[in-house]
């Protein structure tokens, strides 16, 4: 096993599998609560985090975690009980973060980091340390998901019913924002900002077409994610495309195929 981890391809495949398995349930929750745009916002703002981390000569991950946490905490303070985040607020944060990030990166010596690496990461350059962080984060998030799953789903369906029937809605929601922040911060070095955001949304959209219950949608998302990962890495290897973008395009291709195949199929509507 230890020697196996010396192989860069093995490390990157394991990292990809972990990312896909946590992106399935997290992505479903985000889509149900209309938070898909939040992952995008956090991703763009994370560029600023990377810049800050490098300028302050810290680990970029710490910069990202700080910025992303700051955003979710302040958003959850202004978020009123009944409304999702306003798209406008998210867009403002998103663009501001990206702009500030580009300025910070521009101030650094040109060799230190490329924007492309931030956007798409480098799955094939996953180190043992990266893999350890990703594994620990995935296990923590999966544990929290199992523990609070019924509450997460209930809050997604109706905050009113959930709160009245004894679920601490604000706490549950805040926990979810923290989990999203952690996911983005830890995964972004290897996966990149765009790949994370894409893997939270694209496989879930395909899974929606086939599912009758929330839990089924998570399983189908997992299947879609795994298929995208496999086909993406395969294409990347054989066509010499960048790995991250290849996975995203394969996910979209799978979504389109599903859409065309199941266009007229609406599970459980009759």
């Amino acid at each position: 096993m230890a020697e196996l981890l010396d192989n860069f391809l093995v490390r990157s495949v394991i990292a990809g599998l972990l990312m896909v398995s946590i992106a399935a349930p997290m992505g479903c929750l985000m889509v149900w609560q209309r938070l898909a745009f939040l992952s995008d916002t956090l991703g763009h703002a994370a560029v600023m985090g990377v810049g800050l981390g490098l300028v302050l000569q810290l680990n970029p991950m710490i910069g990202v975690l700080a910025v992303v946490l700051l955003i979710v905490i302040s958003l959850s303070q202004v978020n009123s009980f009944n409304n999702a985040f306003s798209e406008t607020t998210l867009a403002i944060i998103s663009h501001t973060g990206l702009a500030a990030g580009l300025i910070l990166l521009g101030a650094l010596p040109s060799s230190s980091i490329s924007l492309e690496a931030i956007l798409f990461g480098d799955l094939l350059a996953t180190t043992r340390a990266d893999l350890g962080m990703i594994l620990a984060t995935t296990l923590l998030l999966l544990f929290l998901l199992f523990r609070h799953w019924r509450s997460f789903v209930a809050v997604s369906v109706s905050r009113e019913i959930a709160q009245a029937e004894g679920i601490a809605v604000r706490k549950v929601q805040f926990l979810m924002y923290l989990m999203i922040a952690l996911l983005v911060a830890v995964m972004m070095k290897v996966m990149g900002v765009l790949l994370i955001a894409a893997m939270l949304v694209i496989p879930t959209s395909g899974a929606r077409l086939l599912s009758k219950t929330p839990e089924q949608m998570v399983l189908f998302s997992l299947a879609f994610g795994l298929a995208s990962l496999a086909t993406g890495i395969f294409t990347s290897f054989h066509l010499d495309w960048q790995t991250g973008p290849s996975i995203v395009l394969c996910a979209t291709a799978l979504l389109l195929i599903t859409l065309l195949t199941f266009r007229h199929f609406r599970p459980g509507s009759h």
Partner: protein
Amino acid sequence: MSPELLIRAKNISYSRGDNRILDRVSFDLHRAQITTIIGPNGAGKSTLTCIVNGLIDQFSGEIERAPGLRIGYLPQRVYVNRLMPLNVERLMQLTRQVSEAEVESALAQTEVAYLKGRQVQSLSEGELKRVLLARTTLGNPDLIVLDEPTAGVDVTGEVKMYKLIGEFRDRLQCAVLLVSHDLHLVMSQTDQVLCLNRHLCCSGLPEAVSQHPEYQALFGQHTGESLAVYSHHHDHVHDVAGHQSDHNG
């Protein structure tokens, strides 16, 4: 012997901005009693139920809840995101683990067992209300809170639905807090009426409230007459779908 006190609300006031929505409202909810909140649009009826439920916590006044109080809630509106697959069976298990048999028998009470496998988004408003009403009875609630349970249900189905709510109360020995516009239909099932118009105009037994001058000023005297019509001339039954049949009793 007075029934167990489940909720005591004392001098509840609530404002949104400069708008005073509730002004010093006090009442008690007892086990196995049906309490109906009536009042015109904008009277603060839904706001009051939200405070009872714990949905709104920035109010002044005091709410005492019996420890471990279990609530089943039917909100006025439920909007389920179309991006979320959710069938009726899973909706029934939303906040509590319940067996399939319990789900089926709960749905059968409101005559919607056939909807079990349907997607929630494909239900009509009336169907959804019946599913949600059935849902509130799961998990042995101490209190069920129903915010306009018959909105979207046809008039003939309403009578049956209110009768059913009375049966829930008898079987589960739970308190019921009901928001309603259908004064004449509700009255015969109710133990306590709260007539609300931002402040509590009057409260008490239905007969007493319907004679109260503030009630009559709000709703007019004719409502008392239609109450009489409904309580004395009801010699046939309707099922939820509105079919009529002869009374067997």
